[in-house]
């Protein structure tokens, strides 16, 4: 469904991601892992059209969308829950969802809101509250729900678990699995390798903008020492030292 061919992207003269090949199929969860600044968020933002493409192509259902505007990508079925969530903080949960579904006609709005509330019943209790007053976990639900309002076939989710309580992380991953079961493709960025390996079907490790390891989640679990070394995480080295 989504196919990156030697995609490079960056900001001005700076290269964030170098010649990345990646595929995400329908009904599949792919996790991007890597250290800070490895290019994970930039990859998602480039697919959504927010970061300048500097080489290669982005194909969605075989169509080259490399130069399509962000809005056109949303309309074609790609939705983003971005880094930092970027909710409309003064707007209520309901209003955030309304904006999320802006490319779809108003008639489908009510049905899509029902879908989101069925996925995250907790949002029904917070429906008219300003999004900025919600807890981190609830805000992540709004971010995912807002993205779902555009009826995507591919979801890009950044920093799924960052800063969330473990229980909330479970809720979010429960929802992501439910989306996979409905045939959505999910490309997510995850700080916690443990979480990523547990939830994903496939894993791609980025280091300094390049893919350095890829494989199934099961293989990733078997190679976690290697992957941790790529991430340069303190955890792996600290464990080894102690």
């Amino acid at each position, binding site marked *: 469904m989504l196919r990156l061919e030697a995609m490079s992207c960056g900001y001005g003269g700076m290269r964030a991601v170098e010649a990345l090949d990646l595929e995400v199929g329908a009904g599949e969860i792919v996790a991007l892992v890597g250290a800070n600044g490895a290019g994970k968020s930039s990859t998602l933002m480039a697919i*959504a059209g927010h970061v300048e493409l500097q080489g290669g192509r982005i194909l969605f259902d075989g169509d080259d969308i490399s130069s399509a505007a962000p809005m056109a990508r949303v309309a074609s079925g790609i939705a983003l829950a971005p880094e930092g969530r*970027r909710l409309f903080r*003064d*707007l209520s949960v309901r*209003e955030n969802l309304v*904006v999320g579904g802006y490319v779809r006609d108003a008639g489908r709005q009510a049905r899509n809101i029902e879908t989101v509330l069925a996925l995250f019943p907790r949002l029904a209790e917070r429906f008219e509250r300003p999004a900025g007053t919600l807890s981190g976990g609830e805000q992540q639900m709004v971010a995912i729900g807002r993205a779902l309002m555009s009826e995507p076939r591919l979801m890009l989710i950044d920093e799924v678990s960052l800063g969330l309580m473990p229980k909330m992380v479970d809720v979010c991953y429960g929802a992501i699995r439910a989306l996979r079961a409905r045939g959505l493709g999910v490309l997510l960025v995850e700080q916690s390798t443990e979480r990523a390996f547990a939830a994903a079907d496939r894993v791609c490790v980025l280091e300094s903008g390049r893919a350095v390891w890829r494989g199934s989640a099961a293989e990733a679990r078997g190679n976690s020492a290697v992957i941790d070394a790529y991430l340069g995480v303190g955890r792996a080295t600290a464990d080894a030292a102690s």
Partner: protein
Amino acid sequence: MLQLELTIQGLINGSMYALMAVGLTLVYGLLRILHVAHAGLYTLGAYIAVLIANASGSLLLGAAVAIPAVGLAGMAVYRLLYEPILDRPPYVALIASIGLFIVMEEAYRLVFGPYGETFSTPYLAGRLAIGPIGAKGAEVLMVIAAFGLLTLLALLARRTRFGVAWRATVSDPAMARSFGVDTIKVRYVNFFVASGLAASAAILVAVLNNLVEPTMGSVPSYKTLAIIVLGGLGNVAGTLAASLALGVIEAFGTIYIGHLLDRDAIAFLFLVLVLMIRPQGLFAAK
């Protein structure tokens, strides 16, 4: 009884400030521009209304033409003045806006003369009274217009899909655009509404004073700029509260310290004092 009358007088003046300042804070919230030329559009509304009212004999027709016409003029100001310099530092737009305001005032002076226009038949000059409390017809209409128009605006902003998109654009333009919101249209609508509100305020002031003059926007321009700072730049509810508060303070001050300072001086003294204590405004925007 005096206190009640002063409060009512204050709310009347506050309503006028609100109609004008809300537009100013809307522009600031969306584009981070201090839209000084707003006061020039305000004056334009009064001129169009008085000229059409005197030619046709109908104030209603004058207002019905002036309000949308000034709305369109506001859109033109955005398109021709602000849009080309949006990526420059904010002071560039501020200087351009001050420049346009001066040009507009001078243009009114050149075209319509320095002495001002009056309505050939004064409108709404009668006094409406409930018991001992009374106000001129134009003053009552000022309060009704401010309440009605701003309530309508709030309903549009809260209840309609476009209103929600508008507020989302103020909150995060890039995200709103990526979800398919036409943020350029939001800007045009924003300028249309803001300018139309200013025109309606100006028409009511013109009727109340039975005078339209080239510099009628000067004092309101300073005051409303200060009001939107008090209200927390970009914060509509705060701007409303600050408008009414300033109106009431002015009304009381005129009576109790009026022998020391005139009304405008009292207003600015209040603004200076508040900003010394709370430089972020009474209601800082989040």
